């Protein structure tokens, strides 16, 4: 039984004559799996995220998550984007607690059980290396620290599915590698399922169990690579021959997909 099952989906924006974003899209994800999605720009990666979370409904085909067809937004997902979009009038801790004020299951409890939730948030802050920064405002944090806090916010309601849309695109190389390890450890220590949309092929090969290569618009899955490297993976894997071989293969596949567009 797959956690995510996207079956022959077609999605067109802006009416019958509009842009065909994805067509014949098939994606299956097992529980606990880490799947990366790569592809040329405009290949419908963001559409894939929106379909999976229920923000968009497909015109054709079905999206089934956790055994139920997705017809409206589902709160078992956590999302993080490239832009951390912390709310500047809230402290970092209050930003992280925000999803709990929304999700049906928690919004009534948070007033009476705030202490328990604050503890959970502080535990997450510690996991991403931000212990003691909860009382700071987001604009007092660096870009990398904001992105760490962003991950905490995506995880606070203990989502079954974590959706990451180029979360490290705007960070410098060293901070990015640090955060790869944060994500790697989060995935190893919990049973969360992760979908990572990225342009960074090394990122996808370092983190994922499986890499999906998407075609140019209208997007569909061209290739499905099992990533063979054993876990836990260390950063020196990035200089391994097999690793670079995989990255090169991905690179040429995407180049071909772009040329065919």
């Amino acid at each position: 039984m797959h956690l995510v099952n996207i079956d022959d989906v077609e999605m067109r924006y802006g009416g019958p004559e509009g842009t065909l974003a994805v067509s014949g899209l098939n994606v299956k994800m097992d529980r606990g799996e880490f799947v990366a999605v790569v592809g040329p720009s405009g290949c419908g990666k963001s559409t894939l995220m929106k379909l999976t979370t229920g923000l968009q409904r497909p015109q054709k085909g079905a999206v089934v998550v956790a055994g139920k067809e997705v017809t409206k937004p589902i709160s078992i997902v956590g999302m993080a984007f490239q832009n951390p979009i912390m709310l500047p009038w809230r402290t970092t801790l209050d930003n992280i607690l925000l999803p709990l004020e929304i999700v049906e299951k928690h919004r009534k409890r948070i007033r009476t059980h705030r202490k328990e939730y604050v503890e959970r948030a502080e535990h997450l802050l510690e996991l991403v290396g931000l212990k003691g920064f909860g009382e700071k405002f987001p604009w007092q944090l660096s870009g990398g620290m904001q992105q760490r806090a962003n991950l905490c916010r995506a995880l606070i309601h203990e989502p079954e599915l974590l959706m990451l849309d180029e979360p490290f695109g705007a960070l410098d190389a060293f901070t990015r590698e640090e955060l790869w390890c944060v994500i790697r450890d989060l995935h190893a220590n919990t049973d969360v399922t992760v979908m990572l949309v990225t342009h960074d092929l090394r990122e996808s090969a370092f983190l994922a169990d499986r890499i999906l290569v998407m075609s140019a618009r209208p997007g569909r899955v061209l290739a499905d690579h099992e990533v063979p490297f054993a876990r836990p993976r260390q950063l020196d894997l990035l200089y391994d021959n097999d690793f670079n071989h995989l990255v090169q293969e991905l690179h040429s596949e995407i180049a071909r997909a772009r040329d065919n567009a």
Partner: protein
Amino acid sequence: MSTDAKGLNFVKLAPWIYTAALFAIWEAAVWIFNLPVTFLPAPSRIAAAIVQYWGPIWSNSIQTLYTTLLGFVLAMVGGLAIGLLIGWSRSIYAGLYPLMIGFNAIPKVAVVPILIIWFGIGSIPAIITAFLISFFPIVVNVATGLATIEPETEDILRALGAKKMDIMIKVGIPRSMPYFFASLKVAITLAFVGSVLSETVGSNTGLGNMMAAAQSRFNVPLVFAGLVMLAIEGIVMYAIMAWIERRMTGWAHRSSMG
């Protein structure tokens, strides 16, 4: 360190120095060119007029302040409400916006006679004119604050099952507050324009009426005394609004705080 402290002091003193310089140049110009008092009275002459007519100047200033503030408070409440409403719904926005542009384009001086026909001579036309003229910038600013919510923020919250009301309360309203408080600084000065306009066109109280009456008697120093009082009231109210803005939405001025 000492040069820093000096620089800071100079910045703090600058408004007073510049104001004093303006009045000094003005005084000197009147003296050098020997300008008649009915053309341009010197600041010392205006100060004398303020002392001489303090009783009526004070009561008319209070009257103008009262109509201005009442109109302004109405504009604040109404502007916030309408701003949130048109930020809430695209169709309300589409329907109301052209109407409001039209209303805003009408010269308020043309509206005052109508208000006097409806409500008679008195405070009410001044209050309504102050309201009408200061209402628009507040609406536009609040609506802008709502319209510029990052789509990702909405996506994250909607994916969690947030209703439109949740997004409005958690993000929209706090986010539009800096815009709202910034617009109050513009609105309060416009409110003075409105109330004085109405008092000048048709009223028997207020600084506008006092200046119109003084002008018809060629009491030019008293006209300028009225202008000085208006400037002082305007600056004080502006400063209060700026202070409230900093108190309420300090997070939006983080670069100056950090």
